[in-house]
């Protein structure tokens, strides 16, 4: 087995980092566009890629179109292709009807806290697994990888009982606590440290008499900022979009955005353009993030197969 596939290294036995072959090309070099094959794209390639991009973007564009017309225009054939004049008005109405203000704040809190804690704990554990020596390290790492394969959704019944017992039913901690850590995150950070943090730096810190937390704080954290940012964004996206468990444990008086969106088609509002306006509002924060940080998110996904 060669290391021909970055993301799928789940089946690679954890090796002591010192035996890592020094001649390996750095991660970023391998991810540069066109690093593998150098064929130039022909017109057919561009055509196909444009079609693919259209498929990706059209539903979102059309959401905007539908959100900017009114109910009667949406339900005519042929359907509208160009934006109408009612966008702001519809956005405002949807915002109120689906109580999106509260949902936005809730989602921001939930996704923010989850992303922060995932990044912190993943960086700590990833660093320990990559650069510290301790008994049982390999077995514990295998355990982390094994936990990736267990979907947390399967525990919802006891989880629901637990949260009710704790008095957290319908409250945000019920959504936050179960996802404070992520195995994929730990693995992702470990990969980064194994490849990008030289042992000498850690050793130098030891020689200077720094304790582990100190080394972590002043040597590891500054180096790990880029992957931490990527992990933060990807975790944020997942936490923001998480649906099954929040839908079960929260109710409409205190929802996250995806939960509040289900309200839109629940019969409260039959106005189709309002439904689309709500869908658009709920997606806008992440879309904005993708517009600004798209390149970094792409790089992050390609580096680590972070799928929650």
């Amino acid at each position: 087995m060669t290391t021909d596939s970055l993301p799928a290294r789940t089946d690679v036995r954890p090796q002591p980092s010192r035996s890592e072959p020094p001649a390996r090309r750095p991660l970023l070099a391998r991810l540069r566009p066109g690093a593998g094959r150098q064929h130039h794209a022909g017109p057919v390639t561009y055509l196909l890629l444009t079609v693919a991009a259209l498929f990706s973007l059209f539903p979102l564009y059309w959401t905007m179109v539908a959100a900017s017309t009114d109910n009667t225009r949406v339900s005519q054939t042929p359907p509208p292709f160009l934006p109408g004049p009612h966008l702001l008005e519809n956005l405002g109405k949807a915002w109120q009807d689906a109580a999106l203000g509260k949902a936005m704040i809730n989602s921001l809190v939930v996704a923010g806290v989850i992303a922060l804690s995932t990044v912190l704990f993943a960086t700590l554990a990833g660093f320990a697994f990559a650069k510290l020596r301790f008994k049982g390290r390999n077995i514990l790492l295998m355990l982390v990888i094994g936990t990736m394969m267990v979907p947390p959704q399967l525990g919802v019944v006891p989880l629901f009982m637990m949260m009710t017992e704790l008095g957290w039913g319908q409250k945000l901690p019920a959504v936050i606590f179960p996802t404070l850590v992520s195995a994929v995150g730990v693995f992702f950070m470990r990969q980064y440290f194994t490849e990008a943090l030289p042992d000498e730096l850690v050793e130098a810190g030891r020689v200077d008499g720094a304790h582990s937390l100190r080394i972590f704080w002043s040597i590891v954290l500054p180096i790990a900022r880029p992957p931490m940012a990527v992990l933060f964004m990807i975790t944020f996206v997942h936490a923001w979009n998480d649906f099954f468990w929040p839908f079960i444990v929260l109710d409409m008086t205190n929802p996250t955005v995806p939960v509040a969106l289900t309200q839109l088609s629940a019969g409260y509002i039959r106005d189709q353009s309002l439904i689309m306006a709500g869908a658009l509002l709920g997606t806008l924060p992440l879309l904005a993030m993708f517009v600004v940080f798209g390149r970094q998110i792409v790089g992050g996904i390609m580096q680590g197969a972070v799928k929650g």
Partner: protein
Amino acid sequence: MATSLPTTRTGERERSRRRRRTLLHRLDLRGAPYAFITPFFVVFAAFSFYPLVYTAWISLHRVELATMNVMEWVAFDNYTALWQDERFWNALLNTLTLGALSTVPQLLIALGLAHLLNYRLRGSTFFRVAAITPYATSVGAAALVFTMLFERDFGMINWMLSLVGVDNIDWENNKWAAQAAISTIVIWRWTGYNALLYLAAMQAVPRERYEAAAIDGASRWQQFISVTVPGIRSTIVFTIVLSTIGATQLFGEPLIFGQGPMGVTGGADNQYQTLGLLLYEEGWKNYQMGRAATVAWVMFLLLILVFVVQRVVKRLASRRASSVRTS
């Protein structure tokens, strides 16, 4: 004397400080790694592992939503009831068909897309970001939008089909049409993501292999089949596993498609009710938590089955590969 006293004192203090420091140092070296990984394992144990195990225990009881602390032992009654329940077999079958309909095209398209993205491109960043933009859309929003696009009377998709002479399709009530529509949502959201995983793997395939194949006279297509695909095989396996896990958990898309949050039945005739929806219906609509736990545990067994099958296939494949190599 007045001057020497402080110096011996500081000397002593220095020594004990150093002793304490080496002790602390050793403690730090031994203990810190465990301290660093503890948060992960504590949270995982409390909120993932324990619930999973406890699910099995609950599934052997009769527990109602309103009185969750009253657990009545019923042994395997929930399992036999489930076995005899038509809805279960229907949901199981739907989960499998929806899983196949959403996973297979998704990964095939992703493979093709990754191949295209792997060319030297102008605007490669744009194409990549465009490919994963759907991934930024939550299930809720995506399902709402596609419900509109698949609307029977005025939906965009039926309108386009009408242009090529296809009659209006009832995307919600026709079983296979509904499953195709729901699969489309899944495919739309995840294809670009998988394409990026494949792209990353493709870029790590050594260029020499392509050169060698080209010297052997392999066409582009032959190179793709004989160099690219084997070169990224473990990534393909990885995405198959992840997509399969995702498919067995399918919930939001069939829930919201067509009916909104009341859609736990998965269509008027359960034509697209998945195991995830059945779990929710048993627990939070019929108030039978024991039954819900049973469905969850069956889903877990299903996953284990998938892993075993995958292992066996992988082993067979590698055995075949090695026998080919040695022959």
